Structures are given as structure tokens and as C-alpha cells.
């Protein structure tokens, strides 16, 4: 069993330049190569952990879910036929475990209704949008903005937050989200939209209130 997933040259003196793709590692892992499986784990653990931590709002719970998910993935390797990417498969397994854990908690938090845009009686938008969008692709986020987004995400109703994380952060399809959440695609789209509106409003407010 190889503890260090770093590729080494034959004499072990320097890192090899070739990086194996997930498909190659998967084939090796399916033949029992634990080192290959560990490389897959190392490659995907951050995104999988990030998703679980955001869903569960607890690093410790997320770490346990990630353990369960990768162990389940290993045990089901023989059945994995590669119809989807290994990463997508592991994200779905992790999302399932995280949702099961959330259901077990059975805690109903008091959550405010997400903020929505304001319209006048003719249905025209009355919100003023602060000019923060041109820099979104290139800007480096500072701690205050990260904090504002983190707080706004945490304040979303749980089912909105789940859908937003699975769709906008993890890029799962609506059908995949429907499979793990047991909700209809129209319901998922509605929650996603309301989550985006609430987060957009929070970012807008952050920029509007920020001292220049």
C-alpha cells in the first residue's frame, strides 16, 4: 500500500512528469491497487469535503461523511462502469450520505424567508443594483466579502442551500440532484432561483454598505 500518492521516477529521486488520468487510476484501483485509489482520493477530497462541510455546517461531520463516501466508493468499484466521471460519482455518493445525515438530525432551524427583489405595482424592478458585477470573474475576494457570502449561505433554508451547493458549486445536473434529494426538477429549479436571489441580495447589500 502506497502512503504517498506523489508520482516518483523509477529511482525515486525526483517526481515523474506524467500525471495519470482518473480513468487510468480507476482501472488500476479496480484491480486492487490501493495506491491508485489513494491518488483518486487525494485528487477529489477537497471538493468533496467542501461540499459536505457546506451542507452539514460542521467540519467534523463532513470529515465523517467523506470517510463513509470514499469507503463506499472503494467497495463499489467493481460495479462502477464509468458512465460518469469518477469525481461526479463520488460527489453523488457524498451528497447522499450528507443528506441522510441531515435527515437524521431532525432539527428544524428557524430560518428567515430569503430576500427577494422588490417590484412596484406594475411589476417593474425597483431595486438599485450596486456596480459590482464587472469584477466578479477576476477579483480576488477579501475576507469581509467571503464572510458575508458565508453568512448569507448559512442563513438560507436548508433545502435551498443544498440545491444551490449541488448545482452551482458542484455542477450536478437537475436530474442528479432530483435523484439524491427526492424532489422534482421544477421544485429544485425554484429553490435554486430563490437561493441565488437571496445570495445576490446579500452581495449587493455588502457592496452598498461597504465604506469606499
Amino acid at each position, binding site marked *: *500500500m502506497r*502512503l504517498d500518492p506523489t508520482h516518483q521516477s523509477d529511482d525515486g529521486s525526483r517526481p515523474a512528469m506524467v500525471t495519470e488520468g482518473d480513468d487510468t487510476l480507476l482501472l488500476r*484501483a*479496480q*484491480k*486492487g491497487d*490501493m495506491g491508485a*485509489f*489513494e491518488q483518486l*482520493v*487525494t485528487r477529489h*477530497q*477537497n471538493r468533496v*469535503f*467542501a461540499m459536505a*462541510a*457546506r451542507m452539514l455546517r460542521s*467540519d467534523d461531520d463532513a*470529515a465523517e461523511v*467523506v*470517510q463513509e463516501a*470514499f*469507503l463506499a466508493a*472503494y*467497495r463499489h*468499484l*467493481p460495479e462502477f462502469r464509468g458512465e460518469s466521471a469518477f469525481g461526479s460519482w463520488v460527489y453523488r455518493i457524498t451528497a447522499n450520505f450528507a443528506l441522510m445525515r441531515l435527515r437524521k438530525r431532525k432539527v428544524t432551524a428557524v430560518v428567515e424567508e430569503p430576500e427577494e*427583489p422588490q*417590484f412596484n405595482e*406594475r*411589476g*417593474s*424592478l425597483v*431595486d438599485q*443594483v450596486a456596480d*459590482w*458585477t464587472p469584477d*466578479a*470573474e477576476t477579483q480576488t*475576494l477579501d475576507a469581509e*466579502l*467571503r464572510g458575508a*457570502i*458565508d453568512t448569507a*449561505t448559512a442563513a438560507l433554508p436548508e433545502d435551498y442551500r443544498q440545491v*444551490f*451547493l449541488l448545482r*452551482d*458549486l458542484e455542477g450536478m445536473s437537475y436530474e442528479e440532484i432530483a435523484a439524491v434529494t427526492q424532489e422534482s426538477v421544477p421544485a429544485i*429549479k425554484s429553490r*435554486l*432561483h430563490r437561493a*441565488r*436571489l437571496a*445570495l*445576490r441580495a446579500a*452581495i*449587493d447589500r455588502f457592496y452598498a454598505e461597504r465604506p469606499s
Partner: protein
Amino acid sequence: MAANCKQCIDLLVDYVDGVLDTDLRAKLDGHLHDCGACEEFLESYRATTTLCKKALAREMPESLANKLHSFLHEKVGDDPKPDKG
């Protein structure tokens, strides 16, 4: 304008996914062309996802990553090889 702001904003999920049917898309495009507020709103709606992706990205703490690998070694060490064929 063919539609009001509220009706247009309600369509944004399908609009940004590019799956809105042709007629509705044409209506929304027409509205966006004429309504600066909604055009800005759409930009901020798109930018929200970009900013949230950046803000919420994070790495697994090293201690938890080490624990994960130790856990898998321990558990998988007791398992038969996954490829039973």
C-alpha cells in the same frame, strides 16, 4: 416591452441555462434590451454564482485529510480486493 421585470426575473434559471423556449427567450431578450435595471440584474445574478464559488471553495484541513487516509487504510486493509473477477 413584452413582459414586466418580475415575469422576466422569474425566468432567469432557464434563461442562464440556455433552455428557455424560443418565444419566451425572445420576450426576455426584448425586455433586457429595453430595461437597464433588468440587464444589470441579470449580470449580478450571473456574477453571484461566480463569487459564491470563489468564496465557498476550501480545502480539507490537513489533519482531517490524514485521518481520512488512515481510516481508508484501516478499513480497506480488512477488505478483499474490489475486483473479484
